[in-house]
């Protein structure tokens, strides 16, 4: 009974942590623009939290740089179970223009297990809403 309540609240109102692993910032500004009055993610119950310990979903941008790799793994371990990782943007999916550089890992799925990919360079805020809704529908 409590399980069903918790599951319902997790699906209807996921709390999100925004993690930038070394990106050019365009996807991060579009994620913030998705929370602004024009697109308004908060009407779906999605709230942006500052700390990994309160989050359900990690939204990651950027190809992971070498310096950032340990920090990203530590933050992933700090998020309580069950957790989901959404890789946003072409950099997080496969490295975009930085594929093959000496300091990047060419994508988040080289380091963390990813549940959803949202393509684009940078993504459109509408694509972000679509991707998050698809992830939530797959949980039901």
């Amino acid at each position, binding site marked *: 009974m409590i399980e069903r309540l918790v599951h319902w609240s997790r699906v209807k109102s996921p709390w999100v942590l925004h993690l930038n692993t070394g990106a050019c910032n365009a996807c991060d500004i579009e994620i913030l623009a998705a929370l602004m009055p024009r697109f308004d993610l908060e009407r779906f119950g999605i709230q942006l939290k500052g700390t990994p310990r309160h989050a359900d979903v990690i939204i990651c941008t950027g190809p992971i740089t070498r310096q950032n790799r340990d920090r990203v793994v530590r933050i992933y371990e700090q998020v309580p179970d069950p957790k989901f990782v959404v890789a946003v943007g072409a950099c997080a999916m496969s490295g975009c223009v930085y594929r093959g*550089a000496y300091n990047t890992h060419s994508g988040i799925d080289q380091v963390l297990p990813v549940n959803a990919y949202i393509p684009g360079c940078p993504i459109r805020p509408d694509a972000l809403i679509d991707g998050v809704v698809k992830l939530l529908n797959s949980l039901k």
Partner: protein
Amino acid sequence: MNPETIVEKIHSDIKDKVQEVALTAPRRIQVKVGREHLNAVLTYLKEQFGYTHLGTISGVDLGENFEVVYHLSDGVATVNVRILTPRSDPKIPSVCSVIPGAILYERELQDMFGLVVENIPDPRPLLLADDWPAGEYPLRKDWVFDRPAEIIPGGA
């Protein structure tokens, strides 16, 4: 003051320290000096013409030598002061006593090319990761990166 007068004054005042000086494009002056006279030339430019704004310090790997270019800007013209340093003895003097804002650019040169900047106030690495192996200088032409194969989750 226009760029031509600056070139003439440099030519007449410090002829012994400067190897070449020329106006190559509108508002761009190139000056070539030996590395031992670098601080003296920058002090002269600062006091005579008021060049205090250092844009950046660029390093170029020319094979046998490294060329280091100091870009100073003003409302009149940009002066590019260049020095050559041999690959076998890559040492350059620090200019932080003349222009304190040069510290970050010199730290970057040390990281990327392996140049040794003498009398630098703060010799820590700037850009590379903490676990970067010592002795690997990415921007040198002979440094090649062996790219590890990427894993595709879910199978190849």
